[in-house]
């Protein structure tokens, strides 16, 4: 590592919640989607889980809202280096959707896809055990379109490109299949604590 002459940087704040290479974006919540924000209303929104499952199923907005409500309060980390602390999302735990479709024992991975056609791949283990949500509320308000509303996937322990905006479905697979950014050089898993930004990290 080359020390940069004259660079001191901001005062060091030791924040145990800040993964390596990340900084605290404070109140900012940058928007980084690569596509046009879709005009998608709750009435148009559906969420499907299929692939290696006992019983594929599609939920519409009202049906999804009959599942038990679940909240996430904590931190999120974007691969572009910002982190945001103490955010509050509301929605339904992905476990509730998965329980309804009964995943096959052979299922190891999933491709999450959006109503825009955006895709991202995740190990199934990262989507279960109370660590992933379908979220439609942010800070007690409906999630705004540019942040993925009406509903997005939320997998806060991985870099945020895994938390697909405008979520349309999950397909369960017995292998890993790279999604949009993963085909574009980004890491297959994206664990911020191991700084898995780009493939090969």
């Amino acid at each position, binding site marked *: 590592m080359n*020390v940069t002459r004259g660079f001191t940087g901001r005062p060091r704040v030791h924040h145990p919640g800040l993964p390596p290479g990340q900084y605290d974006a404070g109140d900012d919540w940058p928007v980084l989607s690569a596509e046009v924000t879709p005009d998608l209303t709750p009435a148009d929104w559906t969420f499907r889980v299929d692939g290696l499952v006992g019983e594929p199923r599609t939920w519409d907005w009202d049906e999804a809202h009959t599942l038990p409500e679940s909240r996430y309060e904590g931190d999120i980390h974007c691969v572009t280096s910002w982190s945001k602390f103490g955010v509050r999302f509301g929605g339904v735990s992905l476990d509730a959707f998965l329980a309804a479709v009964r995943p096959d024992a052979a299922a190891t991975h999933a491709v999450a896809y959006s109503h825009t056609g955006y895709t991202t791949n995740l190990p199934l283990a990262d989507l279960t055990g109370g660590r992933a949500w379908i979220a439609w509320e942010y800070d007690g308000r409906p999630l705004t379109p540019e942040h993925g509303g009406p509903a997005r996937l939320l997998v806060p322990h991985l870099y945020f490109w895994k938390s697909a905006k405008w979520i349309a479905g999950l397909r369960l697979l017995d292998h890993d299949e790279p999604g949009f950014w993963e085909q574009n050089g980004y890491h297959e898993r994206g664990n911020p604590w191991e700084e898995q930004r*780009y493939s090969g990290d």
Partner: protein
Amino acid sequence: MTDTFAAPAAFTPPTRFAVPGRIAVSNRSAAVWQTATLTEIRRETPQAATFRFAVPAWAGHLPGQHLMLRLIAQDGYTAQRHYSIASAPDDDGHIELTLDHVAGGEVSGWFHTEAKPGDRVEVRGPLSGFFAWPGDRPALLVGAGSGVVPLMSMVRHHRARGLDVPLRLLVSARGPEELIYAREYGAETTPVFTRSAPRGVPAGRLAAAHLAPVLAGSGLPPGGWEAYVCGSNAFAEHASRLLVAAGQPVDRIRIERFG
């Protein structure tokens, strides 16, 4: 590096909108940090300057790509940010970045107050093929502020190679003083001034009337445009809505948001 669209993934989502296909580029250099030595600083506007670096082992890039840059303090503390590459790919072992001076900015602040030729920083890249333009299809470029940086790489590439493929740039700035690369634009460019404009030119936001000449009638090239939008999120939302309203297909609009 290849210029082709990637083969479709095994799973194609059944969706109502469509993200543009990616453009396949090499990933091999993305994982390695390289030393970039500052060789020249050129002022562009009161807020923005261009920084030229020697990066001897630079693997080359496509216009529109960006890199990750990091500064390292004595105690090992690092600050890293993304920057678009402003220069055209010219294989001479140099790249240029253009940075806005963000008030209180950790990285842009160092560049604008401290940096001088001979200083060394670290870069990895080029990154992300999504916003790349290989020069193979008509390109409609729409940018604001420092969002013009990756688009300028495309304009420069178009010129350097003498490409025939149509290319148009709509660039928005507060006023003529704030227009980055003002001296370099030619007939391909229409500046849009939001606050103060030269005499005889109305000031105002990018509007449908700016897009009409290129998206309707004889302005529209055969096969249509690939649109590249870059700037703040607010600008990207505004510009992409105008493009869709003017008939530009959603799956041919690529957006780079600086957050």
